[in-house]
Structures are given as C-alpha cells and as structure tokens.
C-alpha cells in the first residue's frame, strides 16, 4: 500500500508514453460510456413517461376494489363503505390524496352514433390531484361538483359522435339488478389528453349523478390513493392495507396494469445488459492495450524485478494503469453524456412515429431522464469488469523471470 502513490505516478507516465494508443483507447471508452448513459437516459425517459401517462389513466398508485371487480367491472361488484368512513380512516393518515369514484364500462349514444367508453363518476374537487385532464384547459367547463348534471368528454370522442358542447348524449350501463340504466347528459366540456386513446375512452360525470343513474345509493366502485413516488408505493400500500380490511382488494398500480409493471422491471434488466454488452465490446481493446503495454516494456519490467521490485507491485502497477485509463475515459464519457442530454431536457419531438409510440403506450415527446443510479451503475460495472479483465495481463507481467526478461530482444 505504501507504494501506491509511486506506482500510480509510474502508471500515469507509462500511459502517456504511447499517447496515440492511450488516446484511441480513451476515445473508445468515452464513446462507449457516453452511449451507455445516453441510451439509458432515453429509454428511462420513455418508460417514465409511459408510466406517468399510464398511471394518470388508471390513476392512483394504490387502488381498492371489490375482489371481483377487476375481472368483472360491473356495479354488482361495488364498494359499499361510504365516503365519510374512508374520510375518517384516511384524513390524518399521511396520504397525499385519495378519492372514491364510480368507474364502469358504458355505452354512449349521440343522435347518430354509439361508442363504448369508460364512465368515470367523480368528485371534481377530490380528483384534481389525479386527473390527466387539466380542468382549466377544458373547452367549455369541467364538472363543478359531484351533483353536476353535465358530462365532459374527449375531443376525439366528440368528433366521432358528431356532437359538441351544448348538445345532449345518452349514457347507458347496467344497475345492480342488470336493468339498463341510462340517462341523458348535456355535454358541458371537451378535454384534450396527451394520449389520443384517453380522449376516446373516458367520459366524466358527477359522482352523485352517476350513483343516481346506476341506482347504487352512495356506493362506489373504486377508491384510489396517491403516494409521493410511483416507484416506491409500498409505504402507501401499507397505510391503505392496514386501514382497509373489509374483504376488499388493495392493489398497487403495477399489479393492475401488468404491462406497465413489466416495462418498469424489464427496463432495469435492459440497462444492465446494455452496459455489459458495451463493456464486452470495449474489453477486447482494453486487454489488447494492456497486453501491448506490457509486451513493449518486458525488459524494463525485468530490470525492475532484478532491482528488487516485488512482483505484486508490478501487478498493482498494471492494474492501476488499466483503472486510470478507464477512469479518465469514463469521466470524459460522463461529461459528454451530461452535455448531450442537458440540451434535450425540453423533450425530443418524435411525433413522426406518434401512433407507433402510442401502440407501445408512449407519447410523442421523449424526455431523456438521467438517473444518478444508472450513471453510478454504468461506471461501477465498467471499473469492476475492467479490473477483472486486466488481471490476466497484469499477472503475466508480474511472473516474468528477471534474467530472461532483460535479455529478451524486443
């Protein structure tokens, strides 16, 4: 250990003895680590956006339903605990926001057309935190209270139904006895959403109005809870699960939308595989460089050994050389990555493939997301694997027989 400063200085000087080779290798490491981080940031950004959009449609990080509801989304499988009971349990529980709502499949009919939609009976004041609709940007107005008699639909749906603000539409669903439950509504507002499918599939009405239409008293079909971070929903889940034990089903968002949950998991795997693949491509060059560096100074190594330097010091020196090379290359790569991602923070417009992205559940603007974790992971993996890759040339160098090495004709 005492020798480390000397060895490090030696290693550093050796690196620059053949500056061309070092620069080429540095460029390769820099490009490789830039690509690792850049690509990771892009895909992370995409998945984050997908999940943000997906959760906004679900929404709510933790959701409570009747156990049958998710497979059989009918008012038959409703939640009968009244809102004030939920309020009593959750108002001081440290939950960021919660809301109960009526969510059922329905058929909407205009004068000319019929479409299938998801009817959301909501309390507009409680849903502000959750909604993917910004109330202010609605053409016309958004719902004003749970008693509101109007309906707010997406602009796309309005086009397909040939309807507009001020016209009437009919919503049809079933009541608990499977009688057709229908009611006319005046369209009071049209919303726009980042995902075109949302505009076609969601219809907002007042919660109390929906309850009257479906003849379910003050029952609801789902209660949703918002935590601080969708990546870490367990604290919220615990809170909710402790307080809801009435035979209801408490689920995390990724258990409900398994596609999004899978995306999130697959992403972590993808980042690691991508980093390792790049490293492997780099490793051939790295080992090559070290082998050459050892080979061309066999006589010097022999001399140092003959003068009494310990083989372990030779080993350490070669490894330090390799680590220095990687560290400098990584540093350049990291700086490059940050420098290229920074200007793209406002989003990359990929609307040429908008409908394709929508098929994957992503929107048409890509916001690269640089996570410290990913950067650290990339750097650590490269350094660690680099260490192992340099063991063999370093070992070989430290095993030279001094006399043979000195007399070797280079």
């Amino acid at each position: 250990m005492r020798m480390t400063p000397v060895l490090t200085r030696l290693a550093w000087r050796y690196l620059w003895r053949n500056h061309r080779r070092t620069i080429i290798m540095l460029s390769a490491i820099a490009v490789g680590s830039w690509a690792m981080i850049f690509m990771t940031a892009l895909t992370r950004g995409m998945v984050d956006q997908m999940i943000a959009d997906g959760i906004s449609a679900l929404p709510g990080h933790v959701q409570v339903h009747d156990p049958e509801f998710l497979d059989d989304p009918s008012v038959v499988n409703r939640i009968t605990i009244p809102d004030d009971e939920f309020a009593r349990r959750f108002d001081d529980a440290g939950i960021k926001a919660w809301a109960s709502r009526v969510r059922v499949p329905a058929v909407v009919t205009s004068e000319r057309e019929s479409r299938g939609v998801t009817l959301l009976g909501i309390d507009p004041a409680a849903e502000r935190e959750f909604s993917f609709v910004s109330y202010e940007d609605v053409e016309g107005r958004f719902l004003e209270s749970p008693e509101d008699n109007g309906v707010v639909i997406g602009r796309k749906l309005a086009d397909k139904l040939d309807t507009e603000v001020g016209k009437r539409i009919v919503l049809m669903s079933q009541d608990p006895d499977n009688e057709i439950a229908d009611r006319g509504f005046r369209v009071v507002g049209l919303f726009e959403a980042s995902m075109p499918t949302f505009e076609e599939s969601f219809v907002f009405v007042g919660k109390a109005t929906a309850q009257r239409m479906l003849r379910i008293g003050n029952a609801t079909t789902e209660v949703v809870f918002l935590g601080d971070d969708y990546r870490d929903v367990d604290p919220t889940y615990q809170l909710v699960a402790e307080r809801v034990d009435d035979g209801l089903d408490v689920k995390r968002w990724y258990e409900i939308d398994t596609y999004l949950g899978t995306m999130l998991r697959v992403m972590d795997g993808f980042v690691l595989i991508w980093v390792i693949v790049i490293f492997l491509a780099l490793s051939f060059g790295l080992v090559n460089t070290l082998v050459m560096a050892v080979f061309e100074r066999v006589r010097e190594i022999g001399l140092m050994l003959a003068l009494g330097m310990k083989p372990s010091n030779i080993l350490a020196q070669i490894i330090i050389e390799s680590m220095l090379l990687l560290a400098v290359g990584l540093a350049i790569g990291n700086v490059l990555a940050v420098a290229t991602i920074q200007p793209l923070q406002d989003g990359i417009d990929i609307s040429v493939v908008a409908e394709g992205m929508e098929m994957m559940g992503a929107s048409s603007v890509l916001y690269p997301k640089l996570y410290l974790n990913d950067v650290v992971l990339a750097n650590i993996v490269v350094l660690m694997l680099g260490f192992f890759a340099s063991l063999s040339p370093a070992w070989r160098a430290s095993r030279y027989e001094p006399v043979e090495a000195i007399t070797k004709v280079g």
Partner: protein
Amino acid sequence: MNIVLRLAWRNLWRQPRRTWLTTGAMVFSNTLLVFMISLQFGMYELMIDNTLQVFTGHMQVQAPGYKEDQKMRQTVPRIVPLADSLRDRFGLDTIAARGWAFGLASSDERSYGIGIFGVEPDYEPRVSSVPGLVREGRYLEEADATGIVIGSVLARNLRVGIGDELTLLGSGKDGSFAAAVVHVVGIFESGIADIDRNFAQMPLRLFQDMFYMDGDGHQVVVSAATLEAAELLLPEVAAALPDGAGLVVHDWDALQPGLRQAIQADMSSAFFMYGILVILVAFSVLNTQLMSVLERTHEFGIVMSLGLRPGRLGRLVMLETAMMGLMGLLIGAITGTLFTTWFTVNGLSIPGMEEMAAMFNLPARIYPEVTFATAVAGPLIVYGFTLLAALYPALRLHRLHPVEAMRVN
C-alpha cells in the same frame, strides 16, 4: 501464394495474441449483430402478420372518412355484391365484406358495451384468424339467423355459454334505435384480453337487418398471399371499384399506422446500439493497426530505403486488415448463425416479457430465424468500418522518411 499475401498473413501472426483479441472484438460484435438482426426482423414480420390477420387484412375498401371516424352512415353501398364481384374479378376468396357497429350486449346478469362485426361466415375465416380461434361451440354459418360468436372474456363477464341468449342495443345507420335478440353459437379465445373482452361477430345479413343497413356494410377486407403481393394487388382493386361510388382502398399501413411507426421507433433505437458496437470495433482495429505500424517503423524505413514505395506498404497494411477482418467476418457470421439457430430450435422467451409481447400480438416464445441477409448484413458493415479504421495507419506511411524511420529502435 502470392508473396504480398504471404507477407501480410505472416505479419498478422507476429503478435498472435493481439490479432486474436482484435478478431475477438469483431467476432463478439458480429455474433451479437447476427442474433439481434435476425431476432428483430423476425419479430417485425410476426408483429405485422399477427396484427393484420386479427381483423385488418392487407387492405380494405371503405367509404371516404370511415377510417378516421367509423361513423355508422359512412357505408359501402350494396357491399355483398361488391365483394362478390371482387372475388370473381381476381379469383380470390380472401375477400370478405363486413359491417361494424358498437352496441350494448345484455345477458340475464350483465351488460357490457362491445364492438359487433357483421361478417360473411363463408369468407371471414379466409381473412381473419378469429374464426379459427373458436374454442367452444362452432363458428358462424351462412344459415345462422340469430347466431353470434363472442370472445371468452366477454362470455365469462356476461356469464353466458353456448346457446344462451343475448340482447343487443345500438344505433342504426340512420341513427335510429337498433335492437336484436341473438344466441351464442361459439366462443373464441385469442389469448389477448382486449380482443377476447371487446368483440363479437354475427352474420352480415343479421347485422344489416338489425342496424337498418339497407344492404350496406363498412369494409371489404382483402388479403393477398404475401405483403408484397398485396402491394401489387392494391391498385388493381382500386381500379376495379365501381365508378362514381366514391369508395377508397386503404393499405394496411394506413389502417394500422401505429404498426409501422412502432417498428420504425424500435429500429432507430436498435440501429443506434448497433452503430455504437461497430464504432467500438473500429476503434479496436484502429488501435491495433496503428500499433502494428508504429512498431515496424524501423523495418519500414529499411524497405523504403531499398526502394519500396509508401503506397505499396500502405496496401500491405490494408491487406493485413482485410485478412483479419475477413476472419472476424467469417467466424462471427458462423458463430452468430449457430447461436441464433440454437434459439431457432429451442425458442427464446424472456421471463416477464409475456405482457409486452402480447401488446404487439407476439407469442411469448419467439423462434428467431437466420436468413442469408441477416447473417451477413451486420458482419459486412463491421468489415467496412474495419477497413475504414485502418486507413489512417496506412496513409500515415506516406509521411515516413526512410532515414529517420531507420533510426527508430
């Protein structure tokens, strides 16, 4: 063997470890490229085929504007005679007429909104995979007066089985109230929840009665043997449409714009990754060849002072690179092919990917297949960049002064 070739070959093996390491970099990248490209293009083809054969077909004849709005009144008039005439004209039976509407389906216990297709029972199985997925009961027959086929999830949700009655409500072509009572004759299961939950099919004649279609429909689906054949068929179908009816033909790309775009988005990210791999290999080659030139400075000085021109030496360096690259290309293409073939036989499934695969109508286990193109495309590009990388060391020789070079030890 030609003396220059022999010289280049021997030069390569002066430092066998270095040559193998550089070749190794190529083999690694090439193996990966062959595998990834085979997998990727195989998946695209599957994605297109599987998606199109559910409902879309290769092209559809529709009323203008129907593609965007799917309004009931945007109809193709007298659709069955039109489909008949197209079938006669092209001698194809992969042509089928359809109507599409939205309605509320009610059983004794439940009501759900669903998409209802009116289909020609004799021809629908030839353009769509759904009729073949009937798990219980049977598919529709021309004679069915009140038959309907529904998805398995829908059957479960509605709590109905074969022979049970459903009431359908919807809006007719003229916006009037449409209703019918039908009987479940078959239940299909595609494994894709969205399809199994949301769709039903009934005979076109019944559909036309129920929705007051007056013999109209919404789409004539046309499929060809292959995508390429479909491309050639499209203008002919367009020309065969009755004059003055104002009908249009859309190809699958227009009907499913998301499909090609999803592929494009995936391709661009894949090509970015391939590009990085290729660049890293190029750096490796550049490094190796530069080293090999530098350490021969002395030797090059001697042969140059004996009269050898720098151009000749440059070509020697390029030849060495070409040989090394060729080794990387051949070994890489072979290992890549072997690696991929292993998966062709055993299939590739990534745990946890089932949902993602289902999103794009892909099976959970994928069998990538190597074709000549996918086996050589990647390695050839790597080869090209290898040669490009060696240009710098080769051209550098022109700056070499024999006398100075000889002094270098």
